[in-house]
């Protein structure tokens, strides 16, 4: 660790991993509810478990992004963080607000929660992924703005690099697009249209910039390849991301009541969306192939390569699978979407956060890399989580194909719940794959507690 203020990243990473565990537990609960409908009912209804599962995902990824920014910006800018104290205050504000929100979801019926938290003053609740009560949403904006102020001031007083510029662009975009969460028009077409400004332009727009910046930073550190080479790749990737991803929003506008031309715009541009992920994968492998040093942190290198591959598969291949309007006509809202969502989030954002944590945590704990033993366990966790996620995706895809056939293509289409019964075997297999994923995550946690002599660098 080159700057003492980078230490503020540590609690963010710890909280991120803690919330990640919570997310997976709720995922398993929900997976079981798919096959045992009244499991934990009425204590944790399905809609609440789903809300907690997805909200925890978003919150822990945000914790990860903030931790990553606090770690990499001082090093890139070659200066201490503008205010480490502000970073710590924001950490506690965000953690307490997040925890209270989850407690609210679990303890109070959602309609009561809406009433209690002033939703009638400004109606923002009830939309998928943006279920947070109004005070939480305001809290997110306050935390995001203060965080951005801190990071931007640090960049302004230090060295400016392509990585910090791209990261700032992504983080500012993240904050700005979240403001659409406060705009909830009565017209349901406009409501959906602006809802996607947050959801799509986050995950298929500005978050990809954050991903690119984080991956580029780690690759510079672990490969020793010239910054200029990596920065050129980064520019190409973010250009491709913005060119394809912005108008790619159109793939959400096929059936919501928007004009028909969106079927062409959405199909064409979103069909191009795998290209930046393709470039990201080739970029990661190319940098590792051209490495100038053998960094002792093998686990971080594995996570970095895994990010490229899994994001290409999850976001690229599984996204393309159902993105063309004539195909989406049949697949829309089926388990194919769930398959894509799982692998894309894991491959792109979970893995890039774990890449960063894997690289930075040993340094934050005073060593260049963890011991060989610890890294072996971490690499086991990589394979357990990644392979089980591949199977989760395949089982959901299988369920989706059958669902579409039986419910939408067959000459005598069957009702939704009847079909759900018929594909339950795949839900069971998905649940078991989820258990393996949890074991992988626990192995990942355990790797932090494995001691031994830190691994050392070797010349390439």
């Amino acid at each position, binding site marked *: 660790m080159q700057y003492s203020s980078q230490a503020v990243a540590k609690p963010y990473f710890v909280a991120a991993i803690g919330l990640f565990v919570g997310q997976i537990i709720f995922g398993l609960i929900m997976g079981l509810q798919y096959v045992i409908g009244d499991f934990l009912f009425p204590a944790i209804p399905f809609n609440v478990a789903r809300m907690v599962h997805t909200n925890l995902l978003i919150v822990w990824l945000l914790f990860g992004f903030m931790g990553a920014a606090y770690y990499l910006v001082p090093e890139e800018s070659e200066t201490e963080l503008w205010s480490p104290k502000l970073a710590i205050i924001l950490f506690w504000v965000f953690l307490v607000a997040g925890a209270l929100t989850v407690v609210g979801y679990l303890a109070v019926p959602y309609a009561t929660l809406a009433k209690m938290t002033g939703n009638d003053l400004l109606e923002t609740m009830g939309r998928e992924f943006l279920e947070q009560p109004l005070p939480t949403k305001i809290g997110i904006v306050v935390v995001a703005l203060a965080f951005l102020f801190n990071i931007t001031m640090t960049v302004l007083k230090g060295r400016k690099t392509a990585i910090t510029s791209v990261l700032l662009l992504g983080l500012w975009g993240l904050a700005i697009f979240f403001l659409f969460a406060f705009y909830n028009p009565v017209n349901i077409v406009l409501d959906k249209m602006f809802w996607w400004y947050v959801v799509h332009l986050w995950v298929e727009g500005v978050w990809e910039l954050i991903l690119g910046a984080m991956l580029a930073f780690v690759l510079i550190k672990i490969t020793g390849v010239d910054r200029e080479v990596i920065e050129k790749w980064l520019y190409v990737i973010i250009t491709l991301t913005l060119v394809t991803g912005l108008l790619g929003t159109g793939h959400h506008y096929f059936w919501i009541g928007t004009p028909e031309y969106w079927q062409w715009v959405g199909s064409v541009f979103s069909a191009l969306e795998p290209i930046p992920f393709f470039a990201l*994968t*080739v970029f990661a*492998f*190319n940098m590792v*192939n*051209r490495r100038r040093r053998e960094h002792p942190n093998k686990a971080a290198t594995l996570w970095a390569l895994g990010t490229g591959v899994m994001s290409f598969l999850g976001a690229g*291949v599984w996204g393309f699978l159902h993105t063309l309007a004539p195909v989406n006509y049949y697949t829309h809202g089926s388990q194919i979407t769930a398959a894509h969502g799982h692998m894309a989030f894991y491959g792109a954002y979970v893995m890039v956060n774990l890449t960063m944590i894997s690289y930075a945590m040993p340094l934050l704990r005073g060593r260049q890399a963890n011991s060989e033993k610890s890294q072996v366990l971490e690499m086991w966790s990589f394979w357990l989580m990644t392979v089980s996620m591949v199977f989760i995706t395949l089982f959901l895809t299988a369920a989706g*194909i059958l669902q579409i*056939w039986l419910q939408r293509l067959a000459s005598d289409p069957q009702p939704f719940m009847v079909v759900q019964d018929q594909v339950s075997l795949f839900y069971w297999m998905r649940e078991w794959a989820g258990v393996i994923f949890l074991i992988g995550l626990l192995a990942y946690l355990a790797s932090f507690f494995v001691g031994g002599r830190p691994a050392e660098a070797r010349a390439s």
Partner: protein
Amino acid sequence: MFSPPDDPGRRFAVIAESLYLANLLIAPGVAFLGLLCLWRRADVRTLPLARQHLRQTLAASLWAGVLLVGLSAIILLVGGFASMWSWFAVILYFIVFHSTLVLCGMVGLSRALAGQPYRFPLVGPGDPT
């Protein structure tokens, strides 16, 4: 084997891997013809890195044709076009094998960009020497 950055073979190695990927992704058949044309050029085959990547990509493209078109067709012909289970099998099969072949090509392309040889797992021919 590491080739220097100015090795002319590197350029052709990159072209070969790109054509392999294009054959799988955007221009099936046409890109394969491009690969065959490249293979027919004697000046390209004398460059060790280019020759190595060309052999690999040609062999892998032929395997890709058999695995993706041939086996998919067999599944559909045996199972029947109107059967839910044949479409279930063929879609899952195609996604898995196509993605795997593309990923191998991406690794091959990154190796070519770095001036290094690459052997496709399972389907790539061994070194003749």
